[in-house]
């Protein structure tokens, strides 16, 4: 499987097909038993343990269960992605509000994740993922826990991010979203690619 820069790829497949595993391979949470992974010219085979945090900072990740830090505010959650990279505080103060504006969370800076709706939480997670301007954004079932309206909000943000030049990999179960997006769709079954269409559709389960 090959993904071009700035592409928007949807990965579909039943539960257990290997979608999440694919993402875990990309963030090096898991190592491949066979095959080769090369992202942005980095061959994972030669990746050292100490380089893994640096690699993860280059890939934005959005999870189905948000994975926000619940004892940090919205602002702090988003700023965290920059803090760990050692970005200056002044720059963080300048950037975070802008990104929160992009995902439509202006005014929620001081709220804690548990005070937000699911859609808002997912948008915090997206803000956190895109603030470092990653070349790649992977979103693992970002709409899985959201109602249709909030799901679309999230998808729209992802499309916006893609328009700015970020490669987006998205897994979803949502047939409606897949069919409406009219993007490349890769179908996985039992760990293998069974179809790869430039403008694909998905019939669901």
């Amino acid at each position, binding site marked *: 499987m090959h993904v071009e820069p700035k592409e928007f790829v949807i990965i579909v497949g039943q539960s257990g097909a290997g979608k999440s595993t694919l993402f875990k391979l990309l*963030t*090096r*949470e*898991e*190592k491949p038993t066979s095959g080769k992974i090369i992202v942005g010219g980095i061959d994972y085979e030669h990746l050292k*343990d100490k380089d*893994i*945090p*640096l*690699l*993860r*900072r*280059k890939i934005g*990740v959005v*999870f189905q269960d948000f*994975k*926000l*830090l*619940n*004892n940090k505010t919205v602002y702090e959650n988003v700023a*965290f*992605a920059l*803090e*760990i*990279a*050692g970005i*200056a*505080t002044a720059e963080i103060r300048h950037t975070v509000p802008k990104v929160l504006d992009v995902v439509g969370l202006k005014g929620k800076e001081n709220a804690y994740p548990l005070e937000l709706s699911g859609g808002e939480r997912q948008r915090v997670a997206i803000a*956190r993922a895109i603030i470092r301007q990653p070349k790649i954004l992977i979103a693992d079932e970002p709409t899985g826990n959201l109602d249709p309206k909030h799901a679309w909000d999230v998808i729209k943000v992802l499309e916006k991010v893609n328009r700015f030049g970020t490669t987006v990999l998205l897994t979803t179960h949502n047939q409606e979203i897949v069919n409406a997006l009219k993007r490349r769709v890769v179908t996985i079954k039992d760990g293998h690619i069974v179809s790869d269409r430039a403008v694909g559709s998905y019939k669901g389960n």
Partner: protein
Amino acid sequence: MQDHKYITLERIIKNGFVNFGRNIWLAIAAIAMMAITLTILLFAIVANNTFSHSIADLTSHIDVVEYLKDSVTPAQLDKQLKQLKQLPNVKSAAYTSKADALKIYEQQNANNSTLLAAISETDNPLPASITIKPVDPDKLQDIQSFFDEPAQKALQSDPTSYSGDRKAAIDKITAATHFFEQAGAIGIIIFIVISMLIIFNTIRMAIFNRRDELVIMRLLGASTAYIRGPFVVETMLYGAVAAGISLIVCWSLFRLASSTLNASTLGLLDIHYSSQFFSDHLFTILTVQILVGILIGAASSSIATRRYLKLNRQ
């Protein structure tokens, strides 16, 4: 790079303090646990010290007295004193003349005219003597062996004080003090080990409670130091606060005990001495206690976070 490190350190410390405040209930629970443990440990150490002091006080009274014949010449006496002072286990050797012995006798029995009338300067039956204070009361036999040499025996009017029933009693006391000292030391070591385990487990549970945070930070690409740092800072704060609390508790208890119980001893535990020891060494105890608290906190959290900081699941 220097700047980067400085910013990171600053953020680690700041986050540690912020987390401390935001997880205040967890902090209170962990601090309470640590404070109780440290209090027991501190109390045990002070009690042990007091106990050792009492034992030292007791054994300092142990000595060996040699009774000399009236026929011993000043030259013989000098020679013996010199020889005695060369023995490794002799701390001091003091000569008491017949006249001094009589004076002491008179002072001791000043209220008893019958006993006073029994002896007079002209007819003084009390022998001159040499009192030896040992370095180690355990090894009185070394001194006794010297007195048992025939040349020395010839100078003695009676067997030394380290003989018969008195010898048996002294040996029992030294054996008992020996046992108590060792038991005290072992007790303290056991206390320290248990305290460490309790504190380590408390911290481990506190971190277990927040393991998701660690895992999330890991997924976002934070470095090990950046994730672990704030936890270490936070638990160091726990340790410092717990140490302060336990110090105040112990200090108050000793103060209270020495003033209201109005008893100088509770069995072998000399309360006044404990209280005094505590006040005299307050600053040292405070420093050591806080350092220990901080170190245990830092070490526990470093170890406890390790398992959640794996880079991948294989």
